[in-house]
């Protein structure tokens, strides 16, 4: 087994998703290389070299790779993949954008969102919003895999890999980065938070999310949302938890005013403990909740805030 992990990073440091993906790679074998493709990405490459289990960091440092454009990055991955049995990437929007283009260039049928590794060619993945789990065997010579990061622990950072430069990046001229609007928050990221409190349509307005934020601050929690709350414009798109948003699996997930459509459950039902706060006692969210509280959320949230304050 020779495994290439495509590292997600911001040129300065690795994203946590890369650490989960390395753990998935370790289930396949111990010859693991980690690609850091970016521009002025030396710091990210040094961070990558500390990831336990990584033998070599491949650093592709080129201006054409600055913005992770698929048209520039995917051909480089396809070029490098020839030396490996497996290529793994996190199933984040970064990985979902880049990996299928690389797989098609290699004439490989990618396996998306892998949550379990049964053998060198056999993988488990959720289908139908996680309402079924498929075990599939790949017949392709190179296995191209995107990894569901919540299904694998984070690799530790006690390694000492070598860093090698790789060339071959080329500007395609097909697309250009033209700006971004990133949500800035002092709170933990949704995909790595230990505790998440999410609001749904029941929150009734974006302003009312301040009630969730005050509780989040007491618990050091991230704030999420259902699709309904995002569609209604209460919060930005990157808050969305669900089948087509972010998949999360924190220790504690508190769903407030969320009815529990299957598409939302798909994104959070692997959480260790689920709390549902909803005034509709028939809401499907109660079927997956460890603790359910049937109450008007506008009464419940101030009381919860006060109870947390008293306790600590």
């Amino acid at each position, binding site marked *: 087994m020779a495994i290439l992990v495509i590292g997600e990073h911001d040129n300065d440091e690795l994203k946590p998703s890369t650490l989960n993906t390395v753990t998935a790679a370790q289930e396949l074998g111990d010859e693991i290389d980690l690609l850091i493709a970016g521009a002025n990405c030396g710091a990210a490459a040094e961070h990558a070299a500390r990831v336990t289990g990584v033998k070599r960091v491949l650093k592709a440092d080129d201006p054409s790779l600055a913005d992770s454009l698929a*048209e520039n990055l995917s051909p480089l991955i396809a070029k490098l993949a020839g030396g490996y049995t497996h290529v793994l990437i996190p199933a984040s*929007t*970064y990985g*979902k*954008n880049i990996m*299928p*283009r*690389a797989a*098609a*260039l290699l*004439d*490989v*049928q990618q396996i*998306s*969102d892998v949550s379990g590794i049964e053998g060198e060619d056999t993988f488990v993945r959720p*289908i*139908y*919003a996680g*309402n*079924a*789990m*498929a*075990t*599939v*065997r*790949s*017949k*392709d010579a190179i296995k191209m895999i995107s990894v569901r990061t919540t299904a694998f622990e984070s690799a530790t950072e006690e390694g000492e890999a070598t860093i090698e430069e790789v060339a071959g990046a080329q500007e395609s*001229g*097909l*697309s*250009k*980065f*033209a700006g*971004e609007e*990133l*949500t800035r928050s002092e709170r933990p990221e949704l995909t790595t938070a230990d*505790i998440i409190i999410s609001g749904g349509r029941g929150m009734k307005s974006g302003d009312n999310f301040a009630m969730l934020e005050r509780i989040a601050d007491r*618990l050091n929690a991230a704030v999420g949302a259902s699709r309904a709350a*995002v*569609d209604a414009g209460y919060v930005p*798109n*990157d808050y969305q938890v669900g089948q*087509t948003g*972010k998949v999360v699996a924190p220790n*504690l997930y508190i769903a407030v005013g969320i009815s529990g459509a299957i598409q939302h459950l798909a994104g959070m*039902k692997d959480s260790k403990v*689920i*709390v549902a706060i909803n005034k509709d006692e028939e809401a499907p969210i109660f*079927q*997956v*909740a*460890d*603790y*359910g*509280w049937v109450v008007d959320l506008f009464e419940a949230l101030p*009381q*919860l805030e*006060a*109870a947390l304050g008293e306790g600590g």
Partner: protein
Amino acid sequence: MKVLVPVKRVIDANIKVRVKSDQSGVELNNVKMAMNPFCEIAVEQAIRLKESGLVDEIIVVTVGAAQSQETLRAALAMGADRAILIETEETPEPLAVAKSLKAIVDREEPGLVILGKQAIDGDNNQTGQMLAALLGWSIGTFISDLVVEESIVKVTREVDGGLEKLELVPPAVVTVDLRLNEPRYASLPNIMKAKKKPLDTFSPSDLNVDVTPRTEVISVVEPPAREAGVRVGSAEELVEKLKNEAKVI
């Protein structure tokens, strides 16, 4: 400019799927089917481009069994002009679909391909990216805004950290996210008219495309079930249980 919109027939998004007892897949018999919700958004966007005068013709295409004609007719009723069915009894994988679509792009030479970012059955999220790769075209995935100009396609993408803007050199492939638009319902007169719109059928071999699966499904099972827990009656009781019973705060 012509626009090509690939669509897929899937189990209706509101139906709870059931795994077959022999673990070979999910039950599709006597289950309500519908157009994949992301595909509806793609069709809607193409119609809006046509209404704004930027597009002359909308061609919808699908790869699947004969019943997929229903999905094509639904897209024609929304406002697409003509349809192509690539008929196969195989369950087509994204790579095979992308190869089939490439063959149609080579024939029809559209300036833009608009498709859903994923189908809610396989949840693969691959076909658009693979099609762009095979064509050597630019790609904008997971878009929530689209501006088509003479020599540039501007997209806003929904990414994990927020929003990203890209400028694509046409011809381009774009895959649509949920918030791009709200698809219209087809009117009864348009449903009637759609029955008379042209629908061509090809087989994959007509297009010289090999759709033999690259993966083998070994089993499909139910996920581990979660059981409903207990009800609490106050904030104090909830906090106490989270601290002392669940030990998560």
